[in-house]
């Protein structure tokens, strides 16, 4: 009897530790990936059925609430700007000189035909606020040892009920992420590669975002340049400055 009780207590403690571990891992990932501000110049490669499109943009992000993006190329997109403040999103078009707010239904549309929706982009809560986490195993990806973390929603209004994240055990950078529906059906997969040290952080230079349910290659995000914690002037996050 005693043995059973000890075994139970030990496994309980162990699981708590694991859970703690998971939370700690996520926190360290966040520390690595998130900075007070970020200025990123990136390429988005959208693999269409007929051709592949490359869209270059520059984004300014402050925390999770504020984000401003300006599209630099191709010519069609050039000058188009997007501003996200908390849960609202505006788009400015230079050809019509108008700022349009996108809401509700529109946010579910895909961004530029990619596998990403506006809504996916807009998620501004901390992972640990939305999910409870547990380490469920280990795996080698691309020669790197990773922990497999399983996240289950702990609030009602998350888009993806559960997630799996493969975190590089050394660098605390995610190498793969899978997003699941309530039924456990895999919906989206994110692959992060080209992990390079920038400014003391290990950061993926390339991400592939894929809607698993439909055929196609998904969408690639390639970082051209990234700056962490640079001061961003406040006017950038001002709706009025969209028109400048």
């Amino acid at each position: 009897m005693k043995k059973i009780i000890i075994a139970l207590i030990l496994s309980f403690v162990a699981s708590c530790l694991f859970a703690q571990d998971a939370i700690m891992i996520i926190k360290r990932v966040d520390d690595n990936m998130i900075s007070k501000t970020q200025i990123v110049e990136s390429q988005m490669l959208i693999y269409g059925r007929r051709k592949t499109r490359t869209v270059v943009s520059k984004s300014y992000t402050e925390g999770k609430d504020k984000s401003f993006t300006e599209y630099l190329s191709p010519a069609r997109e050039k000058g188009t700007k997007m501003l996200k403040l908390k849960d609202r999103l505006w788009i400015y078009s230079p050809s019509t000189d108008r700022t349009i707010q996108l809401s509700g239904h529109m946010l579910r549309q895909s961004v530029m035909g990619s596998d990403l929706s506006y809504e996916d982009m807009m998620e501004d809560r901390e992972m640990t606020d939305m999910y409870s986490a547990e380490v469920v195993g280990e795996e080698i990806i691309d020669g790197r040892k990773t922990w497999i973390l399983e996240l289950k929603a702990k609030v009602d209004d998350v888009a993806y009920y559960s997630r799996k994240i493969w975190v590089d055990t050394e660098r605390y950078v995610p190498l793969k992420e899978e997003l699941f529906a309530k039924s456990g059906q895999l919906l989206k997969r994110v692959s992060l590669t080209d992990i390079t040290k920038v400014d003391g952080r290990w950061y993926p230079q390339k991400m592939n975002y894929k809607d698993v349910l439909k055929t196609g290659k998904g969408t690639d995000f390639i970082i051209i340049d990234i700056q962490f914690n640079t001061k961003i002037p406040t006017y950038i996050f001002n709706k009025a400055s969209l028109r400048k």
Partner: protein
Amino acid sequence: MIKFIFKAIIRDKNRSLLPVIIISIGVFLTIALSGYLNGVLGDMVDQTARFDTGHMKIMSKAYAENKDQIPNDLALMGVGEITESLKKDYPNYRWVNRIRFGGLIDAPNSMGGSKGQGPASGIAIDLFSSSGDEVNRMNIKNALVDGALPTKSMEILIGHEFAKKMALNIGDEITYMGTTMNGSMCFGSFTISGTLSFGVVAMDKGMIIADISDVRRLLDMDDAAGEILGFSRDEHYYDEKVALVEKAFNEKYLDSKDEFAPIMLRLKEQNNMGSYLDYVNSFSSLFVIIFVIVMSIVLWNTGLIGGLRRYKEFGIRLALGEDKGHIFRSLIYEATLIGIIGSIVGTLLGVIFTFYLQTHGIDISDMTTDATMMMSTVLRSKFTPKLLYIGFIPGVFAMVLGNMLSGLGIYKRETATLFKELEV
């Protein structure tokens, strides 16, 4: 013998003119009615053709597979060349390009914000062509509620419920946000030149019509189109003829592995029209059959009368020694000849009438208030080759049968009795 009969017919106006007139009228009615019925029943088919399927529609294979989603990224390219070669190979048909598109409409308010936003579906047609072909086909002028047709680039027409919902007036500017053929985001400023009553609630609430060259520029669809539509010159659908064109066209691309190669679909194969067309055919066949039967009875009556009238004559001829069978046969020959003459005249009149109604139609737009795009206000007949011979059935056969019946009297009655009818 025949010459004898013929002379008799021409000379005795009384005897032959009346039956000929009656047969002509009967045959004329049969044809006029059938042609008209075809036109009326084919109305919905025409509607579908004008707005949606055309008599033939050409799309890229990939676009056709997903056409409900309006996948402009899969649209047909090189349409300029394809359309030109279609015009050359099939000059009996009119070929037009159309682009369907969807997106968001945002109406600006005076302060730079938005007074309304809503999803819109659009159809881009050639609004500015001098022939006004597409404008007429879609009955746009009659369906205008407010304002006028676009005359300049970037002017559009929108559903009147749509305009009401977003508090838009003629001359207001709206911003369109959509996706180009390549997947890029695109924006355009359109001015509302007029509002339309489409006649279909969904369209009234969310549809816009723009000019195809504007939309081509906006969506980066230069030399591309979602669909190429073909219409027969008389705007009536003839399935057998169109099927031939479809076969010939598709054969050219049968071996192509290109998923964006063009494919042609005729009306019958689109939008569930197959079963509807069969339905219409069954229905009109039923009508025509019953009508022909009734017409036959009436003309049979005429034949009967025609025979009965001439018992006196038969009596004389029998008395003169003519063989009963011979009289009977001459009766039949006459009846046949009269039947043919009457039927020819009737068919001629009927066909002319049908053609007239087909090309000009009866314009009832004055009688209807609130015209919409979907309701065509011109009633038309439709000519089918069938019309050429269905008149003959009651015209000749009924006539002959009637005469045959009365002719039986020749065999039954005594010569004396017949002679008595002479009553000199």
